[in-house]
């Protein structure tokens, strides 16, 4: 089907070639390549595939927008590649994710890219939900005060991955969580939870809705808390996709051993912001002229302004805000600015808890 559409699209592009007008920025007959540094199966692929046809409709000249995949080294390969791209005609775009941001923040030696060189044009976020098995959930009353003696098992993808958000949260709540390191993807974590090998888990919003909600309905899983969402003032509020589930911040405030004022929470929040509310950002390469950036910004703004946008994006991506232009720029700033104390806290904690050395 997709191939067929492409043939039709290709024919349409060929026809429109004849009608090329020489406007300021016009993509008539061009193909925009949107490179995603992950494989075809991940959340970033879904995200880019959702936006690609919409972008094609809203850019001047209706170029074909194709999503290309360049997986490797946990997205570092693609990001390093994008760092070397120069502006030519505005047909190269790149989409990063939390997994691209974290190694950058933690000073991973493989990182040869510099976010501040790039031009963000659009950003959007997601959320995460932690859940428990029914047995443990009986002890959970909005606080973890009654759960201190229990042992949990969690399938962890890697200490420096997005999993550091749940790991740090549980640590702060005083939960004794044993980490089974090195699982492949969060889907495997959910499988371990289902077979009873793991007893605590988290999923990003879309995976939760798809994979865990059925378990919740069957009474085999109970949502514990979300990581929350950011309001306009940068405060953590309830996740609009899961308004009935308390945030980690609420649980932490209610739990005796947890504090939302210390350096730990500050570090957690900094990494949470980098990993979730501005998780996926779309970039044009270094040196892109302002008129091209503006063209893209306008196109993304037009997508957001569609009357049915809230509905279709909620279906594919969850109810999360989409940032365009300057908002995307500030979303990026949020995502890549982690103050030194938060960073050194996290690196120290990774060293002591997981033996990971980042120096």
């Amino acid at each position, binding site marked *: *089907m*997709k191939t067929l559409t492409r043939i039709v699209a290709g024919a349409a592009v060929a026809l429109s070639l004849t009608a090329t007008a020489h406007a300021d920025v016009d993509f008539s007959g061009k193909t925009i390549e949107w490179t995603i540094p992950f494989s*075809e199966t991940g959340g970033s692929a879904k995200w880019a595939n959702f936006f690609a046809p919409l972008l094609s409709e809203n850019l001047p000249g209706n170029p074909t927008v194709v999503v290309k995949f360049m997986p490797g080294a946990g997205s570092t390969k693609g990001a390093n590649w994008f760092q070397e791209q120069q502006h030519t005609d505005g047909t190269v775009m790149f989409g990063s994710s939390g997994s691209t941001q974290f190694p950058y923040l933690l000073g991973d030696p493989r990182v040869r890219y510099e976010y501040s060189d790039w031009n963000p044009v659009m950003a959007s976020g997601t959320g995460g939900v932690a859940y428990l098995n029914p047995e443990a959930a009986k002890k959970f009353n909005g606080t973890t005060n009654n759960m201190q003696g229990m042992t949990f098992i969690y399938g962890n993808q890697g200490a420096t991955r997005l999993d550091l958000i749940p790991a740090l949260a549980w640590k702060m709540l005083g939960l004794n969580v044993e980490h089974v*390191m*090195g699982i492949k993807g969060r889907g495997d974590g959910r499988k371990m939870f289902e077979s009873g*090998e793991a007893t605590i888990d988290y999923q990003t919003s879309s995976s939760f809705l798809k994979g865990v909600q059925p378990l919740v309905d069957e009474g085999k899983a109970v949502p514990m808390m979300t990581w929350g969402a950011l309001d306009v003032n940068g405060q953590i509020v309830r996740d609009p996709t899961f308004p009935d589930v308390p945030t980690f911040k609420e649980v932490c405030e209610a739990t005796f051993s947890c504090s939302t004022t210390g350096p730990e929470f500050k570090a957690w929040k900094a990494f949470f912001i980098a990993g979730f509310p501005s998780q996926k950002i779309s970039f044009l390469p270094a040196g892109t002229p302002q008129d091209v950036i503006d063209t893209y910004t306008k196109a993304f703004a037009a997508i957001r302004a569609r009357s049915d946008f809230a509905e279709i994006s909620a279906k594919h991506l969850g109810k999360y805000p989409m940032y365009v232009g300057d908002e995307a720029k500030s979303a990026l700033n949020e995502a890549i600015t982690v103050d030194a104390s938060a960073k050194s806290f996290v690196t120290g904690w990774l060293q002591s808890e997981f033996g990971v050395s980042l120096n």
Partner: protein
Amino acid sequence: MDLFNIALPAFVDGWQLIIQPLVIGYLILGVMLGLAIGIFPGLGGIAGLSLVLPFMFGLDPILGLALMVGMVAVVPTSDTFASVLMGIPGSSASQATVLDGFPMAKKGMAARALSAAFASSLFGGIVGASFLTFFILIARPVVLEFKSPELLMVSAFGLSMVGILAGRVALKGIMAASVGMLVASIGEGPFNGELRMSSYDVPYFTDGLKLVIVGLGIFAIPEIVALLRKDKAIAEQASLGAGWLDGVKDWWQHKWLSARCALIGVVVGVIPGLGGSVVDWIAYGHTVQTTKDKAGFGKGDVRGVIGPESSNNAKEGGGLVPTLLFGIPGSGSMAIFIGALALLGSGELEVGQVMLKDNLDYTYAIVWLLALANVFGTILCIALSGQIAKLTTIRFTLIAPFIFMIISFAAFQSGQDLMDLAVLFGIGFLGILMRRFDWSRPAFLIGFVLANPVENYANNANQIAGIRFRQGTEAGFDYIASPIVLTLIVITVISVIVGLRQARNIRAEGEVASGTKRAPLIFLLCIIGFVLFALFDAATIPSYALVDAVFPLFVAIVSLICGLVLLVQMRLKPETDPLFADREQHDSEGENKFGLWPTLAWFAGLLVLTSLMGFILALGIFLISFFAIRAGQSALRTLVLSAAGIGFMCFMAWLLNRDFPPGLLQSAYSLPWPLT
């Protein structure tokens, strides 16, 4: 009752899913592709699936399944053409068919052999599909209980099959499998991301080698090169003779043999990793053993066709069992199938326990597709046999460049990197040498495919067992020594013993003569060299990331011990020992028209040219010079054939919106597509 509440409705839902014109259309398309792939020697399920892989993305899941299942199901049907008409196995699953099918064709009974084979294939395919239905029903409740230790044991059970694949020298088989595992361990470690046998200076290797490339390299390239060196048509004559009905009657007369062999096929298919390379030999062995009058075998006894052909279609149904139930690939092509499934739709299908739980209707749709594909495949094979037989009379030298071109393109799709082609060439070279010295290539691929599941499940099981034991000894033993685990251990031990005993009867790659000591010894030393490299590399992984080093260390040590024992044996045994098997030895009869090195040089030339001026320009030069010089075609035909090849490549790439590998030229000048 689960049976009536869940399974039966799902069974009906599965049927309703596929009984739509579009789905059937895709199924038939897949069947036709599969038939075409099966006819060409060297191309099997791996090559076919990797070619359609790029088309799978975002495709409606049921359409994608129809295409893939249709293709996989009928490769063992059409590969019979090459086996019967020319005596060259059309794919690894039809090797035993050659023994009696080819002599029948020589006696002018090709049609009878083919129709007996098709009848058996159809029957086997249906048996396989029914078994899958039945097995899903009874296994479902048990499978949903599987945890890491159980899954680890299923994978280990698959690995234990290396014993039966090893052929005459068991140690060579074990070493081939462990080298496959070491090759699979190249790249970032799965747990701490420590690099194994790679460096960030060559980022390509940090992601590890892709199955598509390894599968095509280890199986397809050696076959193509071997056939090219012979420089003949696949078949000598196109006349099939009469006897279509006789063949069907033959099958009916031996229906019980066919049924027994189909069951063998199913059972062998169920074993993870084993796949098609041995199933035909086991069935052939069984056929010979259970027949009183053995004199006709090898000279054109139709039972020697019915046995293997009944088993090799049945194994696809069996092979889907571990694939769908546990997400552990039943064979190399099933490993690609698992990857392709994740691309379909928005990734809602996921093999393993989840599929049985949430997508039982799709699971049964696969069963239905499998059965239907076998029916369509048989009908098409009979209807088109005249045309297909003509196709096989084309000189292989005229087909080979196209096959090689398609394989290169398929390989390049996996990483979009010039290194894809270089690695394809490298692994292909390894495959050629393994074939030459009779090292089991299926064992290598099993090692490669099962290395990841074994490492991951071992790691998970080990960590969780540690946690459980800290909670209490009983909790620990409950976890690692469940009844399922214990049963699987018993089955594995039995299979190793039986396998080693049976191995002597199985020539997975045909008879190979022994010769001088020198060449086999050099090859063994090279392999030991690689193992030593892997060992030292794993030893340099720092202690905090030990978890990334455990697996390669263990495998390399086992492999090294095998290698050293082999070295000692080579020192002691005479040149005629099977240890020194060397295919180049019995080549004195002039079977090969061309040497190995000039043939390889053609492909190396394509690789070098591609690195200089990009794939399309290089392909143009390669095709023109190959057709003109090696194949000795007239200028006009050379140009027409080359243009057809380039045109086909450009069309595929345009359809998929892919670029071709660029070379140095492209880094200096920007050229228009498709030259980019």
